[in-house]
């Protein structure tokens, strides 16, 4: 029998969490190293999977299938294709890096790292599940560690933000559950693959597919987030501890985009086409409204949080343009935004930690005290605004080209052009932020502020290497994503 790669990747962090939580008397040092080990192995394995992934085949690979609950025909069914594999790597990479980012956590480290590892397991599980019940199970489990991580280790109004996050997510997933149940009733199956391949006729014969589509998409829209369901995001991102913000913005939001492609578009291609325009308009609102609000922020972290709303608009645009290139672009943007925003949050965390200041109006001139952080922060910022040779450029370019040329939706050209305007605003707020933090006249109160230490330089280097690597040679990812998008296009009839 083949080695169960995906099970190993998903559950190693959870195993680490159990070990850390239940073996008494572990020192802080041991806990940190255990976390490193239990996140590095999944990372190494997922990179290995990426290397041996068959790029010529659009099929699901590394599949595992066991009967789980016979009474409701649920299976323990895992597998990855070209759309989910990049996201698995993204989560595994961030999961490893956030352990390094969390190195200086002193408050209740045992619980902290246990929850962090559990969070990684649940998000990896979402990206690998091919059974709707299993998918929903991982989707919901993720809420619990996130709640604790924000409400115990956060800052500011942390308890408010944590419960707001939970209520929003549960609200979305309540509708999603109703959608999944309807889908299960209509098709008698919980397998995403089977339903996508042959379930449509049955769905339409029993109850309107459009109703199920909308029930499902509410759940994903909360997570992505889509305007007007986005208001949990700035609170949660701002008040979460740095490492958790990195996971939130880097990997967790992608669950929404991934779910839209995997469930909404793949299972309901016709319905998706029918309603694409509404979602594209929402996407453009996300981009422009998100960017405009970002401009007005005075809190460093809150500003980066709002920029995610804007950037996730591109993902939504790319998905519901329903073109081959645009879908590749959307997936690429999910990966790229994960790394870039992860780095932005990590850098913002360092600035805040070292200078004890997060108000943009009071920061300034820090390039003198922290040159390394200033450079890396600038790289991340430039990548975020889509400078060529960074992954941000490759991803956004694909989204725009793909959407503009997509034939699936009428009037898309106008909306794409409106969306492109978002880039201009992004450039505005990113450069303004860099200027306000690093390049104004130096201030005396920051004289003793330190630059990044060795460990921090290590993870910065990893982030920057991935951003530049993908930016210079995007085909390393697009080949894989292309293989995953082809079957979806087949379903769309394109």
């Amino acid at each position: 029998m083949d080695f169960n790669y995906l099970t190993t990747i998903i559950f190693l962090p959870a195993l680490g969490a159990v070990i850390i939580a239940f073996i008494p008397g572990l020192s802080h040092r041991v806990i940190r190293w255990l976390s490193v080990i239990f996140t590095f192995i999944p990372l190494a394995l997922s990179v290995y999977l990426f290397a041996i992934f068959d790029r010529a085949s659009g099929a699901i690979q590394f599949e595992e299938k066991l009967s789980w609950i016979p009474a409701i025909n649920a299976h323990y069914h895992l597998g990855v294709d070209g759309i989910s594999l990049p996201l698995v790597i993204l989560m595994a990479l961030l999961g490893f890096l956030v352990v390094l980012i969390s190195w200086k956590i002193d408050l209740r480290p045992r619980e902290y790292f246990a929850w962090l590892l559990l969070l990684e397991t649940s998000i990896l599980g979402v990206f690998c599940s091919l059974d709707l019940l299993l998918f929903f199970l991982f989707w919901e489990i993720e809420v619990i560690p996130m709640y604790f991580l924000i409400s115990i280790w956060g800052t500011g109004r942390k308890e408010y933000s944590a419960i707001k996050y939970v209520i929003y997510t549960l609200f979305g997933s309540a509708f999603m559950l109703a959608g999944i149940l309807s889908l299960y009733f209509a098709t008698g199956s919980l397998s995403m693959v089977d339903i996508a391949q042959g379930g449509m006729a049955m769905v339409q014969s029993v109850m309107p597919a459009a109703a199920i589509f909308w029930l499902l998409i509410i759940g994903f829209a909360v997570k992505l987030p889509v305007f007007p369901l986005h208001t949990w995001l700035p609170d949660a991102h701002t008040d979460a501890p740095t490492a958790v913000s990195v996971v939130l913005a880097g990997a967790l939001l992608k669950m929404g985009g991934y779910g839209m492609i995997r469930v909404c578009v793949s299972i309901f291609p016709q319905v998706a086409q029918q309603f694409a325009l509404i979602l594209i308009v929402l996407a453009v609102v996300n981009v422009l409204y998100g960017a405009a609000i970002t401009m007005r922020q005075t809190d460093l972290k809150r500003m980066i949080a709002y920029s995610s709303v804007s950037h996730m608009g591109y993902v939504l645009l790319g998905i519901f343009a329903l073109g081959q290139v645009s879908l590749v672009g959307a997936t690429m943007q999910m990966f790229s935004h994960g790394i870039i925003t992860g780095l932005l949050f990590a850098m913002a965390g360092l600035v805040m930690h070292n200078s004890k200041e997060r108000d943009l109006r009071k920061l300034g001139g820090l390039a003198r005290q922290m040159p390394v952080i200033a450079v890396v922060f600038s790289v991340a910022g430039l990548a975020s605004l889509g400078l060529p040779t960074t992954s941000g450029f490759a991803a956004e370019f694909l989204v725009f080209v793909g959407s503009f040329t997509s034939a699936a939706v009428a009037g898309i050209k106008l909306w794409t052009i409106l969306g492109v305007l978002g880039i201009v605003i992004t450039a505005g707020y990113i450069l303004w932020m860099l200027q306000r933090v690093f390049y104004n006249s130096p201030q005396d109160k920051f004289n003793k502020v330190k630059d990044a230490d060795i460990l921090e330089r290590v993870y910065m280097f990893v982030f920057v290497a991935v951003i530049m690597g993908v930016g210079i040679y995007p085909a390393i990812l697009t080949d894989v994503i292309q293989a995953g998008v082809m079957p979806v296009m087949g379903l769309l009839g394109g």
Partner: protein
Amino acid sequence: MVSQTMFIPLFLPELTLAVTAVVVILLDLFLKQKLVLAVVSIAGLLVAAGMTLGMWSSSLPPVLIFFNTLAVDSFALFFKLLFLVIAALVILASADYVAKFRRFQGEYYALVLLSALGMMLMAATTELISIYLALELTSISLYILVGFLKDPKSTEASLKYLLLGAVASAVLLFGMALVFGFTGQTQLGDIAAAIQGMSLAGVLSSPGLIAGMVLMVAGFGFKIAAVPFHMWVPDVYEGAPTPITAYLSVASKAAGFAVILRVFYSAFGLPTWLSLDWGMLFAILAAVGMTVGNVIALPQTNIKRMLGYSSIAQAGYLMVGLATVGFASAGDIAGRSGLLFFLASYALTNLGAFIAIIAISNKLDSDLIQDYSGMAKRAPVLALALTLCLISLIGMPPAAGFMAKFYIFSGAVQNGLLWLVIIAVINSVISAYYYLRVVKVMWTGKPAARSKVPSSMALRVALAVSCLGVLALGIVPGFVMKLAEMAAQMFAF
């Protein structure tokens, strides 16, 4: 005519329980070491559970015994096992609590056993008068147990429970009398035959039959704490000894559902329009129940009261299953098996939560949520267990509550109750707020004192059993679902 004595082997679990209760009372007279009483009670329960299991695995066909008043079918066996396990856990959880009483320890255990016996009979009887008797055996034992503390709150709770319970019994009896008056039968199968024998015009021209049905819903609704028959719940839950609160919230509720399911499915299951009628009645009660329970639970400051309102809401979710049974065609078991699975998972979850609360209140002497502040530092295991149970009550994975909701709601969606399911899932979101408030206080609050909160061995065992059960039902529910399906299929009437 077959001699009825040949059926006695099928009645052995009940007899064992009755004998154990008597033995416990007698032993109490002679023994100084009262812990023995708990051990004897648990031994009796385990023996009865073993016999019940044996009857299940010998897979005899469902039979009616004692002049068609008692069914021995897998439906009854499922509930009997459930009650025996619950009673054993409650006794395990009571051991320290009861040790504080100076007198009447034997009576406490005996009454728990007797009420369990009543519940087992409730799940099995197929005849209106026997149902009433079984119900009263359960209720009277519980009235006494609720007042066991003899302090003002406990006495008030007991009196309230007794008075309202007596009214509910009277209403139930009136309903039964009406049904008997219009059908001429008290045996459920005979009632069903009589109703199916009537013409549509015949049933419509006898509104007394429908009135009888509705009055029975009201009478049973008291037992399961359905809105608007829930007024007793918060006060009784707050005043009763905590192990008895746990017992009331799970066992008494499960027994109520067992009776309702059997009566309505057996006697009023056909014709279809009749079952659609009461299905709709339960659907409305479900929607109102979960909304009222959840909304009133939000501002509660006493954890027992909060769980009281939460149990009203949970009864609402359970009634989604009853509504499904009403809407489903006779061969469709989705509603029934979903209900059974939900009851099993709810029982383990709520027991787990209450056991943790008992352990904490043994030390704190308080049930206020604010006093749970920082409990994660003072008693990490208890806090973790209580968190797991609360998460299960919300209906989130990996706990049993998630699977239970998924299962019961999927049955409802299959029978056209999507609107009810949407109300239910939105209610789950509301409930998350108050359950997580407790979690928040425990994990982020500052501890009020540095002292640890210890827990006895008996409590730890009971807590471990229920929490492992909650996890098992949440992650690998296949086995229990299979049992629930079997139980839902085998109905004798």
